[in-house]
């Protein structure tokens, strides 16, 4: 298993409650939490994988917090862990002293270009693909990070040990398992792998149902 966020296939969560089309932020502070997280990220002190892992490390708060509470808590943790803020500043003991990173502040005029620039993760570097579309593959088991104990990975536990078939190769992408821990980009091929529902669940709803999961080459072996 990985961590508390890894919930695919879990029982007991009750109904999905649709919300109306057109609603973007249910409360004003939701939008503020999202914007603050993006603006803090623009200071360049961490990457998206580190940011995801910070949410996954919230521990019991992960279940207790609503969605944007997770975001804001992880942002606060990252600011302190990376030395941007001192913990005492979170209790309101703020100084007005100019911050060395202030020059990197995301300006209002730069928001549009920053959001439209994005952050592509495809890379020319890395190994050549060893699997081809149509090929059978086995997912590594156990599913937890091979690089760091309790570390970030994008291999969901429900797929561990399952046998699937490569649908397509997406090219070489940054490996989050490395990138979330300061271990470089370590790009490798990512594949969309299709699994029959019967390979994943004891009681699949339909004989022809499938789940497709994007998986890095190091998560897979030939079947």
């Amino acid at each position, binding site marked *: 298993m990985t961590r508390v*966020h*890894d919930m*695919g296939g*879990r029982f007991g*969560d*009750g*109904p*999905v409650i*649709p919300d*109306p*089309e057109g609603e*973007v*932020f249910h409360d004003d*502070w939701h939008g*503020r*939490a*999202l*914007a*603050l997280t993006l*603006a803090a990220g623009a200071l360049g002190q961490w990457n998206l994988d580190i940011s*995801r892992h910070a949410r996954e490390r919230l521990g019991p708060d992960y279940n207790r917090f*609503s*969605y*944007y509470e997770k975001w*804001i*808590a*992880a*942002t606060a943790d990252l*600011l302190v862990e990376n030395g941007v*803020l001192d*913990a*005492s*500043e*979170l209790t*309101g*003991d703020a*100084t007005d*002293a100019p*911050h060395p990173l*202030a020059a990197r*502040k995301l*300006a209002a005029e730069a928001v549009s270009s920053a*959001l*439209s*620039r*994005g952050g*592509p993760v495809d890379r020319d570097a890395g190994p050549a693909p060893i699997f081809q579309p149509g090929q059978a593959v086995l997912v590594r088991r156990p599913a937890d990070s091979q690089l760091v104990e309790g570390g970030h990975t*994008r291999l969901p536990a*429900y797929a561990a040990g399952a046998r699937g078939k490569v649908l397509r190769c*997406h090219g070489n*992408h940054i490996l989050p398992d490395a990138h979330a821990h300061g271990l470089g980009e370590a790009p490798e091929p990512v594949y969309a792998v299709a699994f029959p529902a019967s390979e*994943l*669940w004891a009681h699949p*709803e*339909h004989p022809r*149902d*499938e*789940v497709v*999961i*994007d998986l890095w080459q190091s998560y897979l072996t030939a079947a």
Partner: protein
Amino acid sequence: MQDCRAGQESFAALRQGHMDARVDRWETSVQSAPMPHDHSGDAHPHSLLPSDPALRVKALETVLVRRGLVDPAALDAIIDTYENKIGPKNGADVVARAWSDPGFRADLLADATATVSALGYYGRQGEHIVAVENTPETHNMVVCTLCSCYPWPLLGIPPAWYKSDAYRARAVREPRKVLADFGVALPPDTAVRVWDSTAEVRYLVIPMRPEGTDGLSREELAALVSRDSMIGTALAGAAA
């Protein structure tokens, strides 16, 4: 996340006033508070923030603005972008074009990133796009079981249900029961293919074009394409 929506506006206004007063009190009280000396190495720094979530966000914004690290106008601009500029109408435009132009459809299915980028739909959380098409044989549905990955430049910010534990846990295991929560029933011989967005690839579902729409313009077609139909929890022409 799934609060009762009755009386939402007046409640929000009420809470805003309540919160402003609390922020003032917080800012006053912390000035006289002693320095915390002994953080346990296990404690998360976020636990030092106020307990009310809205107040917590306000407190963090206040600190970052005071240190010159965040421009409040930039926060307004980010919110405005996703409230007013980038949303499901972008994805609906793509779907309507795919329905009405076979060449566009072929390009979209072959290389969605390049095809939608050419329309200006590119950016954060939409750097690598794949379009998947519903057919009478296969219905596609998208989830992110590990967090909330979603094609922002095409659909905007994900709805609360998409980020809910219930959807993340159940969509991969019992997609038909999840569809029933949305009032959708598939024909018994239609298979479901659920895409779990575990990498940076973002999936856009091209719903089936509804019957009887032959004479419609592209704009009229786009109006039939709901946000949920492009995630795969609704059918086109039947907005949730």
